[in-house]
């Protein structure tokens, strides 16, 4: 009986986070490019991965990261496909560190880990720029108008992302409660 509930719970998680990942990827490729600051586009996926990592653990977060990364790359196609790997590692790290936090300190853990996350996203962007535009990069422009705004913009936007992810999880909790999965 327990195994059955456990499998159902996993399937439910996969459906929920599968939809969430796809939805956030669509938002990332449709809404965010319209809300640029200088040349920077904020990353909302990274906040969602961290949130899931803190609440659901590293496995779910890493899987979610892989899926969301694939979705983003499928919609906003680039010839260098590094995002799925990056998001998978982010999910793992966030889950490993944040999941151990107590229930009432998880949002605080999220806030503490945000700057590091944004820094890693900025570092990833830097590497990506180096790989893609090597030889033609104006570093001043890259740092001042792209990487710094991206860091700050992602930092700010990840707070509402946390609320969004938690809000989207509400229906699944309701289903679980009704099905006696809790």
């Amino acid at each position, binding site marked *: 009986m327990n195994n059955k509930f456990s499998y159902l719970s996993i399937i439910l998680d996969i459906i929920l986070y599968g939809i969430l990942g796809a939805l956030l990827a669509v938002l990332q490729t449709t809404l965010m490019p319209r809300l640029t600051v200088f040349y920077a586009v904020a990353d909302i996926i990274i906040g969602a991965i961290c949130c899931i990592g803190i609440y659901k653990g590293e496995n779910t977060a890493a899987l979610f990261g892989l899926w969301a990364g694939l979705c983003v790359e499928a*919609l906003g196609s*680039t010839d260098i496909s590094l995002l*799925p*790997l990056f998001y998978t590692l982010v999910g*793992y790290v966030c889950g490993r560190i944040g999941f151990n936090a107590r229930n009432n300190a998880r949002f605080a853990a999220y806030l503490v880990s945000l700057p590091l996350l944004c820094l890693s996203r900025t570092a990833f962007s830097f590497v990506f720029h180096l790989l893609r535009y090597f030889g033609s990069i104006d570093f001043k422009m890259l740092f001042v108008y792209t990487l710094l705004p991206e860091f700050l913009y992602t930092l700010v936007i990840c707070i509402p992302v946390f609320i969004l992810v938690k809000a989207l999880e509400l229906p699944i909790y309701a289903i679980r409660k009704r099905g006696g999965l809790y």
Partner: protein
Amino acid sequence: MKNLFQNKFMIVLIVIAILLVGTTSFISALGYTSYVRNAIGIVLTPVQKGLNFVFDGFEDIFSSKEKYNELKKENEDLKQQLAENQEALANAELALQENETLKEFFGIKEEHLDCSFENAKITGRQSTTYTVLYTINKGTLHGLTPGMPVIDKYGVLGCISEVGLTWAKVTPLTEPDVSLGAVVERTGETGICSGSFTASKKGLCVLSYLSKNTNIEVGDRIITSDDSAMFPKGMLIGTVETIETDSLTREKIAYIKPAADLENVNTVMVITEFEAAYE
């Protein structure tokens, strides 16, 4: 790190991720799309398209005010430009008209080499119940004095009745104040051309003091006479419109339609000097 290698799920996941990164990048480099990417794209692209449509709508709403302001400014600029162009066009038309007038005046000047002319523009037209007067934009500063003859491109207009520093009043020859020696061009008969109250209302002037046996006819051209002290000789006054006999003196009176365009005159010439004048 130790935990990572103990977590078989994570190891599998990372291997999958690395494989996906490798294969997708390789396939993309060859110009193709991987199956995974293709499948996700097929499912999510319509959603992306729909959301783009929605966001485009929002963007239109938010940017409509800005666009409205831009269009308003553009409209104002275009109106301003149009007004300037219309003004330029009007000026060009005026210049053309002036050019035509001056060409005709130049012909008159060539005909009357003994005369000195001063071009002037009509700046006002006072038409009251009693009198008609024109104001021109030249005065004593330009050498004008009262009594000087004024012509337009067609013929005699009148003479200066009052002069200011930069302006002068011109009384047309239809007014009773003006009288000048005139000749019937065809016959050489002389008379006095002057204005009268009744004739001036019809825009005509009167040729009187004709001989009793005159054979003046309707349509005869009347020009200024040789012995006129006011006007140089041979200037066209007008043409005979009607001929009547005075009931008291039994003399013939001819009503002259002035050659000058009294209604629409804009540019005139003041004859400041001529051979017969002031001798």
